[in-house]
């Protein structure tokens, strides 16, 4: 087994935890000394990890937005003078909220880049590889760090921002790209585009490693991407609020996403009681950043639902605990439909199980007082497939797997939206209808 940083990745747990505590003390000191926001929230006399989790309040997105509004664009949150920042990024600002805006120093970017290197090296990326990052290179922090990580490792990067899918496919094939970074949704889009171009990616391209991040995904989506590209798909995740990658999937155990623990303390709390849950139990990820100096996080309630397992359950030798299956879903993704709890990934698991599905979208509406799921499916013709019965078969499988019979209709080719970044395939229209 090879590691990017053998010492940090294989450090005995007791040493790692002691190191985290020392790092936390310094992070707390830095925050209290330099950030008005944190000075108000953080006690100055925290004596232990237990004391920390007992006395420091959970941080919610609304808290950051409120701090931002006090002195836009960055508000009272930064622990640096924003003039020292070398890069601005921001979230999309969904649901009518303003975006979370961040500013990072050169030091922050080298750390962030290093988290990508840690992940990429574990996945098997090496200096001789050629890589392509298929995203927009814009305000979203997204895969910027992967671009820099590939460069730092000595790989050759083909920047693919601002290009359409056909051009990206052509680059993949022409340059023999071996490493690709994208979202699972966009990987599906590239597969579809390649088919339209008459290109068999598994045979004509040379992709070996795909870092598919930023979205929960179903096992069928992963399988479809791997088969179409003839490559191994790895999961990884970071956030704009955190500023780097906090977990990456290990090649030694499918779904085991190691936490980069020198950079983060990860609590997993019960979504309703807020109490810690044990290894193997579902809970919400609460993160404390230990490395980023500009925009610090202490006990950030992320809304990510995860299951943590001890490092030893993976055979790779790392001492970093892992999230089994990565981010399983978002707390606010769960919908109650006729008493049944449904998530977008559950739906994707059903619909992507049909090879004839090219794209789909789902909505929930109230029809004469009854919650109804509508699935719109864009079909494609495959050998042995039968599009005429597709809607019925999807409805039956949906009922069998999830317990609700949806209304399934076929959509004309090319009519459903394709997205490069975090796809939203489930719209809940019940609240819209009930508004006056």
């Amino acid at each position, binding site marked *: *087994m*090879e*590691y*990017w*940083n*053998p*010492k*940090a990745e*294989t*450090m005995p747990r007791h040493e790692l935890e002691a*190191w985290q505590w*020392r*790092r936390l003390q*310094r*992070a707390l000191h*830095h925050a209290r000394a330099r950030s008005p926001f944190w000075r108000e929230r953080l006690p100055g006399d925290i004596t232990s990890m237990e004391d920390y989790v007992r006395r420091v309040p959970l941080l919610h997105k609304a808290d950051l937005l409120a701090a931002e509004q006090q002195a836009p664009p960055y508000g009272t949150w930064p*622990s*640096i003078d924003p003039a*020292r920042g070398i890069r601005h990024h921001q979230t999309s600002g969904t649901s009518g909220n303003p975006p979370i805006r961040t500013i990072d*120093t*050169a*030091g922050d*970017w*080298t*750390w962030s*880049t*290093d988290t990508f290197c840690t992940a990429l090296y574990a996945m098997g990326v090496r200096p001789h590889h050629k890589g392509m990052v298929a995203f927009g290179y814009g305000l979203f922090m997204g895969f910027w760090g992967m671009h820099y990580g590939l460069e730092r490792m000595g790989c050759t990067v083909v920047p693919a921002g601002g290009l359409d899918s056909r051009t990206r496919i052509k680059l993949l094939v022409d340059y023999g790209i071996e490493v690709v970074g994208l979202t699972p949704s966009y990987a599906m889009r590239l597969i579809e585009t390649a088919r339209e171009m008459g290109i068999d990616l598994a045979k004509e391209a040379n992709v070996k490693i795909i870092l598919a991040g930023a979205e929960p995904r179903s096992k069928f989506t992963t399988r479809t991407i791997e088969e179409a590209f003839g490559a191994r798909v790895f999961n990884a995740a970071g956030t704009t609020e955190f500023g780097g990658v906090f977990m990456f999937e290990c090649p030694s155990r499918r779904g085991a996403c190691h936490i980069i623990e*020198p950079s983060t303390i990860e609590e997993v709390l019960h979504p309703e009681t807020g109490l810690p849950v044990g290894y193997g139990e579902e809970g919400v990820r609460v993160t404390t950043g230990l*490395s980023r*100096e500009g925009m610090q996080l202490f006990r950030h309630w992320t809304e990510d639902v995860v299951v943590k397992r001890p490092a030893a359950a993976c055979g790779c*030798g790392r001492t970093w605990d892992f999230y089994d299956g990565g981010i399983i879903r978002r707390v606010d993704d769960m919908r109650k439909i006729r008493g049944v709890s449904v998530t977008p990934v559950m739906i994707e698991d059903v619909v992507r199980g049909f090879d004839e599905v090219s794209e789909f979208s789902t909505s929930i509406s109230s029809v004469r007082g009854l919650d109804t799921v509508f699935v719109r499916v864009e079909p494609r013709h495959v050998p042995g497939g039968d599009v005429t019965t597709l809607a019925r078969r999807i409805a039956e499988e949906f009922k069998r797997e999830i317990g609700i019979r949806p209304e399934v209709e076929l959509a004309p080719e090319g009519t459903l939206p394709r997205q490069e970044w975090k796809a939203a395939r489930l719209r809940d229209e019940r609240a819209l209808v009930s508004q006056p």
Partner: protein
Amino acid sequence: MTNAHSFLSPEQEARLLGAYTALKELSADCPVPAVGAAVTMALAELRTALDGQGVEFDYFSTV
């Protein structure tokens, strides 16, 4: 092939830290913009490298 125990030796670690310290001193009163910018970036890189080796020094030193 394994690098599981390929740690830096104490001497290598000390040299890395020494390079960081020397650059930090240089950055304090560097009169040449081009050199100052290079030193800033080099300090950021060295700090990340040292951090990955578990060397504890001035975190949050505002590079």
